[in-house]
Structures are given as structure tokens and as C-alpha cells.
């Protein structure tokens, strides 16, 4: 028994090491961004906000950030709409070719982004949609819709199926049942999907690198900065990007956890 406890203790130590490995780059990036050394090492140099002042004054970053935000919001809206429709379709209907439908709706994230980016580049330039901001939006929606679909579909599978049928029996049209039963019930997943898709788009660089042309988004801009010299400015931008995406991902998870009492009462079985 004592040996077992020792093994468990060692396992905990090991798990702490693995989690440290996973979070080391995030934590170190924040530290380095406030450290005055151009080539950071141990022991650390003094505290500075110089790198943040540097990027504040960089004229190429602001348009890139602006583009990223526009893309992120459009992608979040469109892919959540599409993902919601696809999830509801999968939840409710059986039809010929459904497996094909699901493959189309779910597979994009399993394709390496370099391949997806190349395919987008080749296709979009052929139909004259290449090299603008909408090229990035069109491609990112392809990548993000599966995340939205998966989240909404999971939530729908927690719903009592007879709720919607009961609404129909009481005379509600399909549209009204959608508005008053399905939408309120899936609201947490919809919010979560909005946040997650925005985070995925906000971070995505490979597809954007291929299709954006001169309409560089922030991650593409960061990728370009790697070609230049090593600089904690990248960590300063990186820390801002981290903060935004982590906030979005945490919001997405919180949206799924927190339950609105009114909604729970509506859900009945859920309360």
C-alpha cells in the first residue's frame, strides 16, 4: 500500500512536469515581454514596457490587428450559423447521403492547414476571390464550422426530444418551436461556438498566409516578423494574442458550464 502511494505521488510529480511543459511557453512569453533583455536569459534583466511601446508605434500592426478582428467576428457569426443549422439537421433528420453531409461538415479540421491553404489558394485565385480580406473569411468559415457544429450537436443531444414535439402538438409551427424551445436550450452552446470559432480564426496563420495576399492578418504578420531578427516585440504581441484567445476560450467554456435558471426550468428534464 505504501509503495502504491509512492507511485501515485511520483505520478503527480510527473503530471506537474507535463503541465509545466505545456504552460511554459505561455508563461515565459509574458515574462519575456516585460523583460529588458533583447536576448532573454537567466537571471532576468529589469522590468520594462519598452516592447509594448515599440509595437504600439508599429504602423504595420494596427491594420493587421483590425483585419484580424473583422475576420474573427465575421467568421464567428457565419460559422456559428452554419454549424447550428448542420447540428440541428443531424439531430432531427434522416436522409440519403447523411454520412457525406456529416463528413463535409466535420472533416476540415483534420486536414493539415498547409494543404487546406494551398487548395484554397489554387481555387480562390481561379475564381477571382484571392488576396482580399473576404478570401480569409471564406476559408476560415470552412475550418471553423465543424467546431460550432460539434458544440451545438453535443448540447442538442442533452435535450429531451419530446420537448420540441410537444410544442408542435400545442400548435407551434416549426419556426416557433425553433425560436422558443431549441434556441433557448442551445444558447450556451451557441455562445460557446461564437467564442471558440473567433479564437480559432484569430490564431489561424497557415490558411491566411496562403490566401490573404497583401491583406495580412495579425498571425501572418507575426509569421513575417520571424524572418527578421529575434525580438521580444514578438512576445509582446504574442502576449496580447494569448490574452485575447485565452479569454475567448475561457468564455466559451464558462458559457457551457454556467446555467441560466430560467432556461433550466424551460428545459424541464434538465432542472
Amino acid at each position, binding site marked *: 500500500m505504501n509503495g502504491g502511494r509512492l507511485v*501515485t505521488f511520483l*505520478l503527480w510529480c*510527473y*503530471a506537474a512536469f*507535463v*503541465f509545466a511543459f*505545456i*504552460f*511554459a*511557453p*505561455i508563461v*515565459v*512569453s509574458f515574462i519575456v515581454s516585460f523583460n529588458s533583455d533583447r*536576448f*532573454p*536569459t*537567466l537571471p532576468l534583466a529589469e522590468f520594462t514596457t519598452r516592447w509594448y511601446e515599440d509595437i504600439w508605434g508599429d504602423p504595420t500592426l494596427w491594420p493587421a490587428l483590425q483585419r484580424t478582428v473583422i475576420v474573427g467576428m465575421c467568421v464567428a457569426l457565419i460559422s456559428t450559423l*452554419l454549424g447550428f*443549422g*448542420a447540428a440541428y*439537421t443531424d439531430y*432531427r*433528420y*434522416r*436522409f*440519403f447521403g447523411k454520412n457525406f453531409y456529416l463528413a*463535409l*461538415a466535420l472533416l*476540415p479540421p*483534420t*486536414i*493539415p*492547414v*498547409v*494543404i487546406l491553404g*494551398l*487548395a484554397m489558394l*489554387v*481555387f480562390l485565385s481561379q475564381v477571382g476571390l484571392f488576396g482580399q480580406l473576404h478570401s480569409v473569411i*471564406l476559408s476560415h*468559415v*470552412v475550418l471553423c464550422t465543424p467546431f460550432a457544429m460539434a458544440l451545438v450537436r453535443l448540447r442538442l443531444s442533452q435535450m429531451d426530444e*419530446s420537448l420540441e*414535439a*410537444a410544442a*408542435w*402538438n400545442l400548435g407551434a409551427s*416549426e*419556426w416557433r418551436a425553433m425560436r422558443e424551445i431549441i434556441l433557448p436550450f442551445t444558447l450556451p452552446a451557441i455562445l460557446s461556438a461564437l467564442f*471558440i470559432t473567433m479564437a480559432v480564426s484569430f*490564431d489561424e496563420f497557415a490558411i491566411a498566409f496562403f490566401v490573404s495576399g497583401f491583406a495580412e492578418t495579425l*498571425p501572418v504578420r*507575426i509569421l513575417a516578423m*520571424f524572418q527578421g531578427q529575434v525580438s521580444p516585440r514578438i*512576445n509582446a504581441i504574442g502576449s496580447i*494574442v*494569448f490574452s485575447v484567445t*485565452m479569454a475567448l*476560450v475561457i468564455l466559451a*467554456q464558462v458559457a457551457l458550464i454556467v446555467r441560466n435558471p430560467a432556461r433550466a426550468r424551460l428545459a424541464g428534464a434538465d432542472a
Partner: protein
Amino acid sequence: MPASASASHDAAGAPGSGARAAARGRGPTLFGLTMGLPALVWQLVLFATPLVFMVLMTFWLVVNFRPTPDLSLANWSKLLSAGYFRDIYLRTFLYGMLAAGIASVMAFPCAYLLAFKARPNIRWLAVFLLITPFFTSYLVRTYTWKVILTGDGMVNAALGFVGLGPFSMVNNLFGTIVGYLTLVLPLVILLQLFSLAYVDRNLIEAAHNLRCGAVRTVFQVIVPAAKIGLVLAATFAFILSFGDYVSPTLLGGSKPPTMSILIVDVVKSGANWPEASVIAVVMSLTLLAVCFAALIFAYGKTGRRT
């Protein structure tokens, strides 16, 4: 898309819904189409078509710096007979396998601990913590590893205090693998954790009662029972590492190159889209074959021990 739409609720016999189902008919309704069609059209036009188009592009030729429609096998024969291409392909494949293997082995003790030893609230905290980095700028995380691991960076400075090193940890295979692990480790732990959580506790009880040792229980009871999930996790690790561009570029120094680096080089410097498409199609076929092999392996008969 819901061409012959029929409500699954009705099939399930929800109270009194039969009449309404009849009233709605069995053809596609406006409502059904509004829900299902947008995603279908979007992914058909902007996901399936570009992939098909990329396959067609492999038969095109570059004339006057422009890809021109053709039905030539020149790109295929050029790349498939090139020694450097074979080297790069094999190297990328090995890197992917290596990353999948290391990630699976590294993740398993964590997943095991979280699934069997941790209290539920700790487990949920761990899941929460693992989901977050998966969506958090892989690009900047990899760049920060470079800062940490570089010649006079933090790790070498720390090791210097105790009289070790300096070690060369970037622009080589070690750096590349660290990058791959940064990408895949959280996902592999999560997938392993979910598969271990579904292992029937009675099996473990039984093994314990039959005086099966802890280590033997892990390898002869838990691993076979969770095999499908473990294989799935390793497969995802392979897919992500095999296709990754950032780690071999930033932490591996892009020499020797991998398939993704080759694609980017061919597109950027050569603007040779047909050739880049051949590389991408070869990669896609490889991934398909690996997924297929993994499925056969996962559902193979060794999973069910008698």
C-alpha cells in the same frame, strides 16, 4: 439537403406527433432546407471543390509562369522519381511517427492519473486547462520555445548554474519534437483521458481480485480496453505533426525540410502550384492510408481479449 426529410422524433414515437408528421409530408420542407442547406452549400463549394480542384491542378503545367490546364503526368513523374522528394517524404513520415509515439507515451501516465486517481473536480480543472492551450496561438508558443531553448537561452543558463551544458536544443530534431509536442500533447492527454474514463471499473476490480499487479493491470487490462481511444489519440498526433509547418521551420531550422516546408517553398519561391499540389495530394493520401490502418488496428481482434 434533407431531401426525404422525416422527423426522427416521429420515428421515435413522440406523443401524438404522427398526425403532424403526415401533415408536414415527407418531402423537403422550407424549414428543413433553411437549416441544412447553407452548411452543405458552403462546404461543397469552399471545401470539397477546392480539394478536387487541387487534385486536377496536379495535371496542369506551368507555361509562362502561369498554371495552364493540361492533362500531363509530368509533375507526378518529376517528383516521384526525385531522390530528394523521397527523402523528405520518409523523413516527414518518421517525424510524425516519432511525435505520435513520444506524445502517446508521455501523455499516458497523466491521462491514467487523471482518469483513475484524481478527484472529479481536479479532473475537470485539468480538462479545462488542457483545452485552453489547444486553441491558444501555437505560433507564439513555438516562438517562445525558441527563446527558451536557444544557445544562450534560459534552459542553458539554468543548466550552466549546475555546471551542465550548454546543449544544442534548437535547429535540430530535438527542437522539432519539442514543437510537435507543444502542438499535440494537450490533445493526446485529453483523448486518452476520455477513453480511459470509459473503461469499465469492474474489469479493474476483477483484475485486482485475481491478484493481478498494478503494472500488469495497466498493460493487460486497461490498455487493451481503452485501445480505440489510445490509437485515435496517436493518429491525431501523427496527422497534426505530419502536416505541421511551424515546428520544423522555427525549432528545426527548416533544414532538412519536411513536406509542409517543401509546399511553402514551392509556392513562395517557385510559384509552381501544380507541383505543390502533387506534394499536398501525396500528403493527403498518406494521411488517408494512416487513418485507415489505424482504424483496422484499433478495431482489430486483439482489442477483445478472452
